[in-house]
C-alpha cells in the first residue's frame, strides 16, 4: 500500500514538469510509458523475455538520441509467466495506476488476447510481437492493437509454398493437439493443396509431449516427402532431435512451421541442417541488420530473434508516431502509425493495416549444414524473400470486423 502511494506521488511530481517547458507534444503526464509484458522465465523467455526488454530499451535510447523528443520515455517490465490472468491483471494495474501508454511484446496468444482487450477498453495501445495466432488481427481484432512480427499464417504458409515449389509435394503433419496446433496445421495444409501438393495424413500428439518417436514412425510409414511439425518450442525441438535419431531425416525432410533462431541455436546445426523455415528477420541478412544485431549481441550475448527485433521496430515506430501526431492519445497515434510506412533495419516499406497487421516481407530460410557455418550464429541461407502481401492473410479474407466497415 505504501509503495502505491509513494509511486503515485512520484508520478504526480513528474507530471508537473512539462508545464514548465514549452511543449509541442501534449503527452499525458509528460511521460510516455512503455510496459514490456513478457515471459521472463518460462518457455518463451529465450525467444522474447529479457531480450525483448533490452530491444525495447534500445529503441527508446535510439529514438531519444536521434529524434530528441520533447517528452520523457520510460520503460517498465514484468513477467507474465505465460498466464493470461496475471497479464490481464498487470496490464489493468499498469494502465490504472502507472499510466502506461502502450504494452510491448506479449508473447503467447492467451496473454496477448487478454491484454489487448483490456488495453482497448482503456484506450491504450498493444504492440504485439511475441504472440503468434491469427485471431489477434482477425476475429478478435481491435483498433488499438498492432501485430508486428509474424503470425501462424505467415510462417507456415511461406514455408509450405516454397517447399512444395521445390518438389516436396507429399506432406504428413505431426500436430500438437490443441487449438494452436490445429490452426497451424490447417493453414499449412490449405496452402499445400492449393499449391498442388498433397496431404497424406496427420497425427495429433499430446501437449506437451516429450517422446515423439511413435508419431515419427507413423510419419515415416506414410512415405511422405515432408513432415510438417505443427507444434512449437520444446515439442518441435524434441521432434527434430528424434527424427534424426530414428534415421527419418535426411530421407524425409522436416518443415518447422513455427521456429525461431533460438530453437536452432539450442538444437545445433547437426540436428537441424537442411530444414526450411520462415522468419520475419535474420540478423545476418544485410549490413543494417548486422549492425543492429551486433549491438544487441553486445548487450545480451545472444543474437536477436525476430520477436526481439520486432519489439525494437514496433517501439520505434510507435514513438515516431507520437512525435508526428503531437499527442499520445491512442486513436491519433494509431492513425499516424497506419499512415507512416515502416522503414528501418527490420522492415522495408512495411505498413500497418486497418486490422492491426503490420505487413512486411518475410524470408524463407534453410538451415545451414555444420560445414557451411563459418562463425557463431551463422545458421541460415536466405533462400527467398516472400513479399508481405503474399505472406499475410489478404484483407479480403480477413474476418476482422474493422475491415468490413
Amino acid at each position: 500500500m505504501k509503495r502505491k502511494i509513494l509511486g503515485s506521488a512520484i508520478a504526480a511530481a513528474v507530471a508537473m514538469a512539462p508545464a514548465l517547458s514549452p511543449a509541442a507534444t501534449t503527452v499525458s503526464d509528460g511521460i510516455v510509458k512503455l510496459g514490456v509484458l513478457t515471459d521472463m522465465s518460462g518457455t518463451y523467455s529465450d525467444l522474447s523475455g529479457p531480450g525483448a526488454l533490452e530491444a525495447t530499451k534500445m529503441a527508446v535510447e535510439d529514438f531519444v538520441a536521434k529524434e530528441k523528443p520533447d517528452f520523457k520515455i520510460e520503460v517498465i517490465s514484468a513477467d507474465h509467466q505465460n498466464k493470461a490472468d496475471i497479464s490481464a491483471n498487470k496490464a489493468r494495474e499498469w494502465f490504472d495506476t502507472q499510466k502506461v501508454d502502450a504494452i510491448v511484446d506479449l508473447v503467447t496468444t492467451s496473454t496477448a488476447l487478454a491484454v489487448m482487450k483490456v488495453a482497448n477498453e482503456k484506450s491504450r495501445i498493444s504492440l504485439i510481437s511475441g504472440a503468434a495466432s491469427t485471431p489477434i488481427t482477425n476475429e478478435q481484432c481491435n483498433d488499438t492493437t498492432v501485430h508486428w512480427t509474424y503470425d501462424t499464417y505467415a510462417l507456415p504458409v511461406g514455408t509450405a509454398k516454397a517447399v512444395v515449389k521445390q518438389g516436396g509435394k507429399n506432406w504428413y503433419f505431426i500436430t500438437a493437439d490443441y487449438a494452436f496446433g490445429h490452426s497451424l496445421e490447417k493453414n499449412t495444409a490449405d496452402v499445400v493443396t492449393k499449391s498442388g501438393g498433397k496431404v497424406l495424413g496427420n497425427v495429433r500428439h499430446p501437449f506437451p509431449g516429450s517422446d515423439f518417436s511413435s508419431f515419427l514412425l507413423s510419419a515415416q510409414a506414410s512415405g511422405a516427402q515432408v513432415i510438417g511439425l505443427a507444434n512449437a518450442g520444446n515439442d518441435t525441438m524434441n521432434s527434430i532431435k528424434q527424427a534424426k535419431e530414428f534415421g527419418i531425416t535426411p530421407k524425409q525432410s522436416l518443415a518447422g512451421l513455427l521456429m525461431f533462431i533460438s530453437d536452432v541455436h539450442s538444437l545445433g546445426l547437426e540436428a537441424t541442417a537442411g530444414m526450411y523455415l520462415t522468419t520475419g528477420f535474420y540478423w545476418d541478412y544485410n549490413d543494417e541488420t548486422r549492425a543492429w544485431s551486433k549491438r544487441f549481441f553486445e548487450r545480451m550475448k545472444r543474437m536477436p530473434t525476430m520477436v526481439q527485433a520486432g519489439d525494437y521496430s514496433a517501439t520505434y515506430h510507435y514513438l515516431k508516431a507520437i512525435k508526428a501526431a503531437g499527442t499520445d492519445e491512442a486513436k491519433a497515434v494509431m492513425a499516424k502509425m497506419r499512415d507512416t510506412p515502416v522503414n528501418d533495419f527490420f522492415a522495408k516499406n512495411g505498413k500497418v493495416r486497418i486490422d492491426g497487421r503490420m505487413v512486411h516481407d518475410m524470408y524463407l530460410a534453410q538451415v545451414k549444414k555444420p560445414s557451411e557455418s563459418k562463425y557463431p550464429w551463422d545458421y541460415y541461407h536466405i533462400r527467398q524473400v516472400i513479399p508481405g502481401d503474399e505472406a499475410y492473410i489478404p484483407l479480403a479474407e480477413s474476418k476482422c470486423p474493422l475491415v468490413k466497415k
Partner: protein
Amino acid sequence: MDIFGIPIQALMGQLLIGLINGSFYAILSLGLAIIFGLLNIINFAHGALYMMGAFCAWIGLTWLGLNYWVALIAVPVVVGAFGMLIERTMLKHLYQLDHLYGLLLTFGLALIIEGLFRYRFGISGESYPVPELLSGGFNLGFMFLPKYRAWVVAVSLVVCFGSWFIIERTKLGSYLRAGTENPQLLQAFGINVPLMITLTYGFGVALAALAGVLAAPVFQVNPVMGSNLIIVVFAVVVIGGMGSIMGSIVTGLGLGLIEGLTRVFYPEASAVVIFVIMGIVLLLRPAGLFGRER
C-alpha cells in the same frame, strides 16, 4: 498381415517404442518405490532430480569434457550425494511428523531446483549428442531401431532387475525390508538405521539421475523435462500400488506399452490413457495392482 488395420510390422515398432518409454517409467517409479518403502515419503523432487541428472551429464560434457560413459557412473553418484545431503539436512527432521510434510518439502525443493536451472540455462535447454559408440541403428526389418534406444532398454532392465534382486534376494535387501516394517527392531539388532535411510534416499535419487543421463541424448535437456514426466510417473505408481519393487517395474514397463499402443490406435488419447487406467484400477482395486491390503 494387419491388426485392426495397422500392419503388424508397424505395430511391432510401436510396441518396441512403448517399451523404451516404459523403461524410463520403470526406473523412475522404482526409485520412488524404494524411497517410499523406507522413508514413507513421496519424493516430489524426483522429476527435478531426473532433470538435474540430465543437466549434470551435459555440464560434464561441455564444461569438463567428461564423456557419456563417465557421466553414466559419475552423475548418479554426484546427484545421489546431493540427495543424501537433502536427507541429512532437511528430510531427517520430518520423520516424526505426518508424512504429508515430506511431500510438501520435496515439492518446494522441486520448485527451487527447477527455478535455479531455469535461471542459469534458460528454457529451451541444451542438446546432448548421442555417444559415438551408440550412434546409428539396427534395421530390424519392421523398423529402424536406434542403437541408443536399444541401449536404454538394456540398461534399464539390468538396473531394475538388479535392484529387485538386491532388495528381494540378498541380506542387505532383507535389512531394507525389515526396516520398512519395523525400524526400532532393526536398530535393536545393531544396524545403523539413520545411515541406512540416508543411503536408501541417495540410491533412489541416484536412480532418478541415472534415468536423466539415459534421457539426455534422447530428449532435449531442459529445466522442465522432469516436471511433466513426474506426474505421469505418479499415476504409474498409483496404478502399481507401491506394494512391491517388482510391481513398480512391471507396471512401469506395462504402462509404457499400453501408452505406445494408444499412440497407434487413438493418438489423441495417449496423454490421458494412463490417467484413465488409473481411475479404473482405483475403482476396482483401491490399493493398486500390486498394493498391499490396508
